[in-house]
């Protein structure tokens, strides 16, 4: 999740950029270097495990996001639709398939390697399963399926953990061993997990800094950068641990100085509205979208999107003492794998702990996993907190579904509404002529 060039030039940011382009470089030379590549997803990714087999990690969602930021996805989506995909389905999938159809040139302009293994850890969304079936049809490579059950009753049962652990043992690890030719070493996994836990600690500190007034971070637009390393190919690496240490120090400084978040237009002037945001952002117009917020002094103090790759702020940490169980628990606990009542509870908790003025839902056309039920979420939160909510609609990487005028209209009205409510306002009945 590299930002478009020249947004934020902090040390942590430079570090992250270097990590990400480093990973792309490794992918580009993977074949030459004789490295094996696994393709896998963000929610419920098993990065620590993949690392045990010296495999590289290519995340199709991240490619879609990066291509979205670079405004390349429109053409890719068209390409996929031309090849028979419905206009109704998830545009991450179509952006990925379109990119492959057009030569599989990655966001950095270099050809991406064919994966040796499709590691289908299927967490929080059914589309992933179809996505990898489609990729499997194309690459004709090995696929390892990890079915992560859904928390239908809002809890993780023993049955679920043992099901996932069993699959890891009997399905996933043997395939990883076979494809990579590396023998599984559980101690290596333990070390990786220990590093993850350290980074997670700092990451949570950063997210929670938004409880301050003014908040030193934007937990949505800024947040998508902060989650980069921990949600993707770096969790469990030394680099990631270092990144979060740097980041924490930077934010601590802003906090001490009473500064607000950094925005593409420099420091944010004054915090006027504190929002909780539910739903992923739009990537094709990311900058314009963000601008609609910071221009009016709106800061996002907590977001659910930054929890799709793990809910660390609720206390979960990867645990070297129970390696496979903790991976299972991690997969089972990702945001979209929680049932709707738990999602509502979580948002309510954020509204209170982060003293938000309201909840904004950015409903994404592509993603039923997030979107189906969001209108009830909005209603419940309004009812429980008495704070106003707002609802906007866009898409992840399909530029056709981002209507700036429409969104601006709604945001403007929303902010004016919060203002009016704060101010009271005077009654002005008219007399008819």
């Amino acid at each position, binding site marked *: 999740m590299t930002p478009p060039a020249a947004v934020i030039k902090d040390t942590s940011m430079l570090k992250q950029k270097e990590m990400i382009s480093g990973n792309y470089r490794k992918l580009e030379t993977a074949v030459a270097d004789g490295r094996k590549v696994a393709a896998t997803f963000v929610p419920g990714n098993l990065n620590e495990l993949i690392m045990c087999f010296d495999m590289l990690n290519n995340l199709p969602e991240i490619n879609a996001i990066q291509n979205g930021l670079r405004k390349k996805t429109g053409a890719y989506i068209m390409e996929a639709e031309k090849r028979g995909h419905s206009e109704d389905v998830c545009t991450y999938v179509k952006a990925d398939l379109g990119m492959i159809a057009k030569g599989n040139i990655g966001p950095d302009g270099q050809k991406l390697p064919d994966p040796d293994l499709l590691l289908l850890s299927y967490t929080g969304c059914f589309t992933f399963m179809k996505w990898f079936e489609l990729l499997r049809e194309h690459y004709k490579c090995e696929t390892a399926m990890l079915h992560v059950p859904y928390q239908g009753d809002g809890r993780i049962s023993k049955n679920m953990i043992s099901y996932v652990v069993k699959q890891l043992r009997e399905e996933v690890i043997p395939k990883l061993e076979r494809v990579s030719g590396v023998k599984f070493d559980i101690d290596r996994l333990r070390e990786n997990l220990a590093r993850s836990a350290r980074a997670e600690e700092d990451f949570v500190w950063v997210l929670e800094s938004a409880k301050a007034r003014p908040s030193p971070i934007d937990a949505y637009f800024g947040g998508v950068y902060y989650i980069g390393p921990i949600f993707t190919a770096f969790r469990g690496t030394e680099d990631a641990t270092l990144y979060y240490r740097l980041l924490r120090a930077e934010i601590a400084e802003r906090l001490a100085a009473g500064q607000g978040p950094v925005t593409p237009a420099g420091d944010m002037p004054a915090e006027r509205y504190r929002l909780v945001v539910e739903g992923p952002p739009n990537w094709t117009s990311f900058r314009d979208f963000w601008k609609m917020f910071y221009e009016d002094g709106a800061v996002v103090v907590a977001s659910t999107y930054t929890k799709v790759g793990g809910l660390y702020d609720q206390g979960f940490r990867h645990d070297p003492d129970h390696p496979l169980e903790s991976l299972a628990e991690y997969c089972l606990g990702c945001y979209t794998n929680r049932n709707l009542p738990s999602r509502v509870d979580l948002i309510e908790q954020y509204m209170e702990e982060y003293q938000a003025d309201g909840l904004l839902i950015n409903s994404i056309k592509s993603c039923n996993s997030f979107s189906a039920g969001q*209108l009830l979420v909005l209603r419940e939160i309004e009812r429980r907190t008495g704070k106003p909510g707002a609802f906007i609609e866009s898409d992840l990487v399909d530029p056709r579904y981002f209507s700036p005028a429409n969104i601006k209209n709604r945001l403007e009205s929303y902010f004016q509404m919060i203002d009016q409510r704060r101010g009271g306002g005077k009654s002005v009945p008219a007399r008819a002529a």
Partner: protein
Amino acid sequence: MSTPVTEIITVTEIIARCQALFDDLNFTYAREWKAAVPGRIVVGYMPFYVPRELIHAAGGLPLGVLGGGEQLEVIQGDAYYQSYICRIPRSTIELGVTNRLDFVDAMLFPSICDVIRNLSGMWKIMFPKVRSRYFDVPQNFSDGVGGTFYIHELTELREMLAEASGRAVTDAAIRASIALYNENRALVREVYAFRARQPWKAPSAEVYLLMRAGMVLAVEEHSRMLREYLDAAAAADRPRRDNSRVVVTGAFCEQPPLNLIKSIELSGCYIVDDDFMLVNRWEQSDVSLDGDPVANLAQAYLHNSANTSAKYEPDPAQKGLYLVAAVKRTRAEGVIFASPSFCDPALLERPMLQRVLAAHDIPFIAFKYAENSGQMQPIREQAGTFADSIKLWSTP
């Protein structure tokens, strides 16, 4: 069968009964069924696979909730869904908030897609007094892994049902229910086979209504109805038309309007196989009656159940072959992909299936619908063109 002559029932009568059940958005039959004997429970489920045997064994009526169709005016349901989500969850919510499901003791939400999955949570929030459960099934099909998980899930469901009905769900009761459902599935398969042989004698709209009745009737009654239909339809004298034979696929969840099914046939296509209401024929042969009945249900799920896009296909070489087999079995001349708009599982699967069909030289067409689609013109147009080309190019 020894049906006395005086009791011969005509196709028209049977179908009129089915149509009445289909039109009844208040589920009067189920209400009366429940009221007739104290202690009975009704368990609703969204279209797709759930183990109906367990519900039956708990003294319950499994009630298929298949959305509101084209007659229901959805007013409040729309408030819960964006325009880019399919129709069935919103009309189901409408049924709920208008108290049409107020007699239902428990709701099951099968594991089919993210929309139904999230609906299970919405139900918990909106109808806190109703037991509702997301019913997960394994996507791992080995006995020791997926099987063990599934037996646990079934056991939890069994406990929930026992609690709801206030009586233990015994192994013997489950076995008895399996036997009844085995019989019902066999009859369903027979109706399908009959239609594939003589589609002009069993119009698709009729077969559809007949299967729909099975979603709301007690299984014993439905089996009787199927038997009667088979006799009556075989006896009916109906003209054979110059139609082509097609398999309809992709309609396993939100149901098309009845007019759509009629339009397909009117524009020149006989439907000889379909995937409407798969739960009626989910297990493809009898579930074993020996030994642990729950384990038998799990076995049947893992190794002998219908294929559909909500299920993972572990073997890439097998992907989509079930559809080719259906075409061969029913001597169909083509496949119509009819899927609900915004239905991710059906629409993501579609290109893969189409490539398999193309590889086997089976022609296909595709369109989308909503349960309340009003305009049949584009449907007639496409189905008609499909039929035209067979009409014009078949050799006399």
